[in-house]
Structures are given as C-alpha cells and as structure tokens.
C-alpha cells in the first residue's frame, strides 16, 4: 500500500488563484469596522459575530481545501494541526504557521504566525483593545474541522495588534465525532 502523501504548502499554493493582498486586507478591515458600527462599539458582540462568520466560511472552505490539496485523512490531531499550519494557512493566506506548545495528551496546541495578511496596516485604537481582530480565523478553524468530525475550540492568545510579538491561536480538540448512521429506528 503506498504511503499517504501529505502535500507541501508551496505545492498547493502555486496553482491556486491569487488576489491582491491589499484588497483582502481592506475587505476584512471594512467588515470589522462595519460590525463595530452595527453593534455600537460592543467589542464582545463583535468578537462573537466575527467568530460566527468565520465558522460559516470554514464549513465551506474545507471542501475546497480537500479538493485542491488532495490531502488524505489525517490519523490524529497532531497531523491535523500540521496540515492546517503548513498546507491550509499557506494555501489560503499565503503564510504558514508553526505548531507548538502541545499539551500532554496531544489535544491542545498553538498555531504561531509571524506574519498575517489580515492585519497589514492595522492599528487598534485604545477603545478597541479587547477586540480579537483575527477572530474570524478562529471561526474558520472551528467550522472547517467540524465538517471533518472534529469539534475544536479556537482562541486568539497572542495578537501583534495588542503588543505581543506574534499571532498565536490556541486549538483545543474537544471531541472526535463519530459518523451517525440511521440504521436502528427502534432505539
């Protein structure tokens, strides 16, 4: 049996259609700005809304990722995190992340990015210091992984917009969902 090939990031990145990075940054920025206006500067609600939007993106994005990267099934959460960091993020954001800070059971890790095109040219003013600007990305992780039967929780722990030295997202595997088969009606 041939070994499963995990494609490399640059290999999947090159044939994918690209857009202007500034268009992306500006579009994302205007979404955040509009949400702040709509929720009247309630930062917590905006954070929740960004995560929800990310979730809706993630549930759709996963099929494109699987189709274009021809990735095979990951055997465990470690492989999943590696694939997200090296292939997924590279394919969609053009930057890859490193996976660090694994907990003892192998169910929690951190994805660390040095560079993030979503936040180019952004500076958070004082009144929005609790805004998780990249929360949409947390939602994308949650949505995408839910479609492949992994329930995860994703939070932003380090954010360069808040003065830290890198972007760190903590991914926590809550449970692996089993496929439901409606065979037994008498249960």
């Amino acid at each position, binding site marked *: 049996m041939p070994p499963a090939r995990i494609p490399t990031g640059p290999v999947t990145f090159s044939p994918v259609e690209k857009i202007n990075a500034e268009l992306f940054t500006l579009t994302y920025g205007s979404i955040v700005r509009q949400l702040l206006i709509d929720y009247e500067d309630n930062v917590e609600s905006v954070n929740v809304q960004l995560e929800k939007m990310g979730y809706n993106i993630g*549930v*759709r*994005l996963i*099929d494109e990722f*699987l*189709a*274009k990267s021809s990735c095979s099934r990951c055997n465990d959460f470690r492989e999943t995190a590696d694939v997200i960091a090296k292939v997924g993020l590279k394919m969609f954001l053009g930057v890859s992340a490193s996976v660090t800070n694994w907990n003892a059971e192998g169910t929690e890790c951190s994805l660390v990015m040095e560079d993030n095109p979503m936040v180019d040219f952004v500076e958070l003013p004082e009144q929005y210091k609790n805004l998780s600007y990249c929360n949409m990305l947390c939602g994308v992780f949650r949505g995408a992984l839910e*479609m*492949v039967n992994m329930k995860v929780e994703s939070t932003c722990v380090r954010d360069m917009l808040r003065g830290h030295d890198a972007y760190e997202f903590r991914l926590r595997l809550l449970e692996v969902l089993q496929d439901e*088969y409606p065979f037994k009606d008498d249960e």
Partner: protein
Amino acid sequence: MSIFSLYIVNKSGGLIFQKDFADIARLNTNDALMQASIWHSLHAISSQISPLNGCTGIEMLETSTFSLHCFQALTGTKFFVTCAPRTTGVESLLRTIYEMYSDYVLKNPFYEMEMPIRCAAFDLQLVVAIKGMA
C-alpha cells in the same frame, strides 16, 4: 457519451443533485431520491462489514450494462456517476466535479449547505467537464 448520470448525496444521505447526460431511461424524482438513500446506506454498511480496517466504502460497482463509480469526500459528501462499463478516467472526473462543487456551489453565498443544488454555473461547468471526457 459514456457517462450516464451524476448524483451528489449530502452527508445525511439526501440527494442534493442529480443530472442525466445520456439518453437513458430517466428515474422520476422519488425513485432518484430512494436510489440515493439506498446507495448511501450501502456505502455506509460496506465500510462497517469490511474485514480489514480503514475501509472507506464502495468505490466502484460493475455490472454487465453499466459501472458506478463513487467518491466520498472527507466531509461526507458523496459523488457518484453511472457510466458505460470499462469507461476510463472516471476517478479524475469525480475529483474535478468535487473541485467544481467546492467552487461553484459552496462559494455561492445563497446556497444553503446540505440543500438541493440549484446553481446554473455548476450545471454549465459540469456539461463542459463531461463533454471533455467523451
């Protein structure tokens, strides 16, 4: 054309897309829905009864008059085509259809997940892809 029809089944077993490409006896809607559910169940059972671990379900069914090729994405969506026996290139056609699904269907913001697919662009691209096979 050697491809007879395409069916797309969502992860709960419901038929979300069905299209015939050749002049064959057409199933009515109810029968098509039933056929999709039966295939969904068969596919699920096959991975359960497999004597070896790691079975991902039926990939091909061959009969004297037609073959059925099935591709299941890791998200649970199944794409299967019925075609003439010994047609080649069906696996790569299924992969191409999966890519088109991820583009023209999923990226349509008005398409609701798991619901029947009604995207004109997807239909057009499908016809192009199937014609390219013949």
